[in-house]
């Protein structure tokens, strides 16, 4: 599965340049069955989200109706059509996580970040979303922050978990 982390060069590349890149990548997927979801994942990794222009390009190149592309994008909570923060916090609300307190963890995250599900913090560092089973039910409740899995999360631990990422950000700010 493609990494959630933004492509490093994407910071410098403009959206137009990224579209040209995406167009080139799409060459390998023309006419291949089941190409839509992998292509959407690649695009989301490149742009950090799925801008309208990228979806229109994908629709055109894969010869799929725009409505169908949009239908797939809106079906999966993994895909976003609005820019997201650097770190995507996803709280599992699958059955196991739900019964072991996932919902309380989600509430704690909402309070701590002061945003609702689907939103992004003002400093563009965190976005919050829910997920449906990451396949780690034995570690419930689970949250994922980009590709990191955090297990047996308790509402009280939420501040500490977020803080490790906040500290990382502060360090990189200082380096710059």
């Amino acid at each position, binding site marked *: 599965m493609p990494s959630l982390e933004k492509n490093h060069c994407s910071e410098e590349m403009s959206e137009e340049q990224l579209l040209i890149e995406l167009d080139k990548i799409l060459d390998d997927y023309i006419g291949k069955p089941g190409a839509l979801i992998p292509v959407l994942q690649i695009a989301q990794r490149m742009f950090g989200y799925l801008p309208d222009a990228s979806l*229109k390009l994908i629709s055109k190149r894969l010869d799929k109706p*725009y*409505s169908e592309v949009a*239908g797939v994008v*809106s079906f999966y909570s993994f895909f976003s059509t609005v820019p997201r923060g650097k770190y995507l916090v996803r709280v599992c609300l699958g059955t196991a996580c739900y019964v072991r307190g996932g919902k309380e963890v989600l509430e704690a995250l909402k309070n701590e970040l002061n945003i609702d599900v689907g939103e992004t913090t003002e400093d563009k560092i965190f976005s919050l979303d829910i997920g449906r089973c990451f396949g780690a039910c034995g570690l419930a409740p689970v949250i994922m922050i980009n590709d990191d899995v955090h297990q047996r999360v308790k509402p009280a631990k939420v501040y500490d978990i977020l803080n490790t990422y906040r500290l990382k950000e502060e360090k990189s700010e200082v380096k710059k």
Partner: protein
Amino acid sequence: MAKIQINDKKIEVKDGLTILESADIAGINIPTLCHVKGGKPRGACRVCVVEVEGARNLQASCSTPIKDGMVIKTNTRRVRKARQTVVELILSEHDGDCKTCDRNNDCELQELARELSISNIRYEGSKTKRRIDDSTPALIRDSGKCIKCGRCVTVCSEIQSVGSIFQQHRGFATVVGPAFDKNLEDVVCVQCGQCAAICPVGAIIEKTHIDYVWDALDNPKKYVVVQTAPAIRAALGECFGNPPGTLVTGKMTTALRLLGFDSIFDTNFAADLTIMEEGTELLTRLKKAIVDKKNVALPMFTSCSPAWIKFAEHFYPDMLDNISTCKSPQQMFGAVAKTYFAKKINKDPKDIVVVSVMPCTAKKYEAQRPEMNDSGEKDVDYVLTTRELAKMIKQAGIDFNILSDSEMDSPLGLSSGAADIFANTGGVMEAAVRTAYEIVTGKPLPLNNLHIEPIAGLQGVKKASLKIEETLSEWSFLKGVELKVAVAHGLGNARKILDAIKENKENFHFVEIMSCPGGCIGGGGQPRFTTDDVRLKRIQAIYKEDEGKKLRKSHENPDIIKLYEEFLGKPLGEKSHHLLHTEYTQRCKA
């Protein structure tokens, strides 16, 4: 072959069929809300569940293939209870009030609830969120009534290859509609209305003009003329309980008179006019290509179907020069009614209201295109679908089935059999060839009963060729030319032939395209429910109407000849060019 048993019937059916298809062969009815005969299984509504011996759960019969030795029960207590539960659950979400719904008494969900004797909805759940999209000139979508069966998605993407709508979001929040909850007006939609024709409930309907028409009829200052498309007479009867294929031309004319229209005219008249213009245009293009060696766009495409025009404007903007510049018969009629006819009755065109009755929703869109006002006024004011006309007749308390027959009025009411067949796939081509062949050779088309058989019927893409042996001296350049024609109906089939032409895999002189499967007789505004059986019966009725006429060719229509003598001059002349021809607009794809 597989031997199976359904209820007490033992039958042998082809491998690969589904339980639903096998039951149909056995004459056993299994209800369904999402499946369309001949279409791919969807398994969306779960109404078609049956018991299969050895299977733990009930199986959706539309998507379960049969196996040799299978024993199926379609009518057990368990099956009946499950179907009731499914329909109750659908009803519990369905935000609609049957009494005031456009589909009252014409609704598959309502009918099913009645068949299953549902008297109580035991589930008090949330209702589907209502959002009304009335952004387009032809269609209204109401998400509250949608049962998410997906039929409209199938017809829009697979049959029409347009893809305006798709399932968005998921679970209870699923909405069937354009991308990202946009309005239909803001995405590519050709307004063909096949979605409205196939919707089992009232979630997609035509935008009605009934009230405007009543207002015009009630206004003593207005002279209201009505035109009826060729396809109406073979379908309107179905709205009054007649079997498909019942011809009701005379009764329809009487009903229109009783409704209070001042003149009852015929779009067929304008269809004959279209043939004069379009036939001449084809011959002119051929002459330019063969004699003058000029670069003209060939093949020429027909231009009667407004959804096809919009489809080409969006998806084939580089081929617009290939489309005949002729307006559709509806629009030709409007332009002639508000000029030639207005002068005849000494009326200001402002005081004339032109109402069309069309089998089509896209005609509502076409009538309001900004360029459609060459008479100086809006050429066609209001467009009713076949279904809307039936409603008006019912509103007026007219007992349609006991009406006597009457004739249409003069001078825009007389038509040839060639105009009748505009209603079905292959018809415009045949009508054009009947006239063009005779102009070129001076002899009638040498075919059985004037029919070009290879282009009749429901095959998606049809082709024919005709060698021109002898010609009149004026057309000697066509001597020995093999005229190649093609016919496609349903925009998915149109796409196939367009792509083949674009890639130089096929070449033709003339191509007929109708947007809806079967042609206008299967239009988005026709009585529901249009299956292939119904299409064939309506087509039979249309051919019967054609063959029953003395006049079989457009150029022999004396009122058309008179129109040219008194008013238009000649086909493709200056006046024709101004009133009867149009231009097209390149539009974006998404």
